[in-house]
């Protein structure tokens, strides 16, 4: 199997990130390998993600109050905070998964580059394609092989691709997720046979296959053993710079290890969640301004 190397494929030059929706016309008319590849991979460069004045409700229950956060291009932003303060809700608002919950509602804007993903002319599927998500529990498609899982996004979004393109995408995305060497000889075995940590990296590969601008991760290591956790953290390190990453974690060491910036969420008793403090990770852990942040990062929180 000879795969085209990355340099052999002439991807179109990346437009400046100020150019509005790059992949609004998703379905490529031209189905030649190169056209599909560039349509699938876009001209992805990491893009800044900016949440502005986000409020969120489940029915009448308000769970987020005017949360604003900028997640800078190519950096890893960690969301930390005690259970139930709205981190997952915030994360799911960032790629429009929140609206899947009946009776859930939100207000505010989520700017990807200079485009509000909640704007009336924006398709929900296109927002989710550009802002990928990795869940707490590894959730590969169990009936599919590793190979099929890696490129499942193509099928899901109705993009046809031929063998060469698929092979390339599979290897490329599995390499990005640091999984390629472990599975290259069993690509066609069911994904259910992988270990939890491998499954989680397969989920990262699956999200990376369509070259998202942003990757959201909700406690991606909480179901994993320390070794697998380490591998996933290394993977996050590898992806830094290629994609804007937002990670929710309960593990302070992990937040300190992997993130560039940190945001501390807190919900007072019976109150919606807010961001108490945000900033560079070093400052948040080294010299937090707020006493509550200091207590939390030092593990002295109730």
């Amino acid at each position, binding site marked *: 199997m000879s795969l085209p190397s990355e340099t052999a494929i002439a991807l179109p030059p990346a437009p400046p990130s100020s150019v509005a929706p790059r992949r609004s016309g998703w379905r490529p008319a031209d189905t030649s390998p190169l056209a599909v590849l560039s349509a699938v991979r876009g001209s992805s460069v990491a893009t800044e993600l900016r949440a502005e004045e986000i409020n969120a409700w489940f029915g009448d229950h308000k769970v987020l109050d005017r949360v604003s956060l900028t997640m800078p291009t190519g950096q890893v932003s960690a969301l930390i905070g005690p259970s139930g303060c709205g981190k997952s809700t915030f994360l799911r608002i960032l*790629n429009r*998964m929140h609206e899947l919950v009946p009776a859930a509602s939100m207000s505010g804007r989520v700017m990807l580059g200079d485009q509000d993903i909640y704007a009336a002319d924006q398709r929900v*599927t296109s927002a989710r394609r550009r802002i990928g998500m990795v869940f707490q529990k590894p959730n590969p*498609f169990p009936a599919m092989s590793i190979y099929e899982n890696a490129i499942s*996004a193509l099928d*899901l979004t109705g993009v046809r691709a031929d063998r060469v393109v698929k092979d390339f995408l599979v290897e490329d995305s599995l390499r990005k997720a640091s999984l390629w060497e472990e599975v290259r000889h069993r690509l066609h075995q069911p994904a259910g046979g992988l270990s939890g940590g491998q499954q989680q990296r397969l989920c990262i590969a699956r999200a990376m296959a369509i070259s998202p601008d942003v990757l959201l991760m909700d406690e991606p290591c909480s179901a994993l053993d320390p070794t697998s956790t380490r591998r996933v953290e290394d993977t996050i390190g590898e992806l830094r710079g290629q994609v804007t990453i937002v990670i929710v974690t309960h593990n302070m060491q992990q937040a300190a290890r992997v993130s560039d910036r940190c945001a501390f969420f807190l919900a007072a008793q019976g109150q919606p969640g807010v961001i108490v403090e945000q900033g560079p990770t070093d400052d948040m852990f080294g010299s937090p301004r707020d006493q509550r942040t200091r207590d939390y990062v030092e593990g002295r929180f109730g």
Partner: protein
Amino acid sequence: MTEGAVEEQVDQPRKIKLVRDLPDKLFRGVASAGGVTVLLIMLLVGTFLAIKAAPALHQAGFSFFTTQAWNPDGRHFGVAALLVGTVLIALVAVTIAVPLSTATALYITEYAPRRMKTILIGVIDLMAAIPSVVYGLWGFFFLESRLAPVAAWIAQHFGWIPIFKVKGVDGHQPISSLTLFTSSTLIAGLVVGMMITPVITSIMREVFSQVPVGEREAALGLGGTKAGVIRTVVLPFGKGGMIGGTMLGLGRALGETIAVYMIISPVFTIQPHILQSGAISVSSLIALQFAESNSFGLSALMAAGLTLFLITLLINFAASSVVARSRSGASS
């Protein structure tokens, strides 16, 4: 007891004795009684049929399975035409019911707004509660006259496909009479299809709604469209249930009696042309003849019934083994 004996015991799997307390014993007793009763009833029905069928089967020998005619008094009878007719009607029914059920179940689980969902589920339950004799009436007085022209059109344009051929229609001459197309396998099959749609839909809806949320969200999170999610997550997960539901529907279709009896006009030759007037099925024949049969005629009917019983049993076993091996089946 010597040391040696103890040594020996250590190396052996230890016997574990379960001590059950009274409520558990009672409940267990009631539950197993239920299970055993069901098995017993099946066995009784089978044995009864076999004993009653014996004289006819003995008389006819293997020709019972090859003879098309049904004339027990003349000692010339067999299930060849009956079985073909039964299977054809059931196949028509399943061919119509399965796509209809799949679409309905998908609409209910994936698309319908909550109110519509409740209404549809209610309507489908109602559809299951309508007695088959009512379906028969509807088929006979309403559907038949409206379907005959459609059947005529199909016969005229697609008569070159063997199952759509109708004797007396050649595609060039105008059709002489619509009675050629009444009381056919197609109409009986269509009515039976309506009758088995609710049960197939219910089963499919049940399995589709059990698709793990994690997989659904994974698919949506990748930018999947509704159609994409259905294709990559819902249908693969639901496959076992879909097959199971189809088989259950098929079983019912094979046995459906009254509606078929009311619609068809019996023929005792193999009738592979589904649009052509005249059809037959095992159960409708039994309904048709059991009242005026002598004891040998009854025995012949029993033999036909036994054949159907065994075929249905076989299909159900095949279905349950397929379902058990699939994911959605394993969970339900």
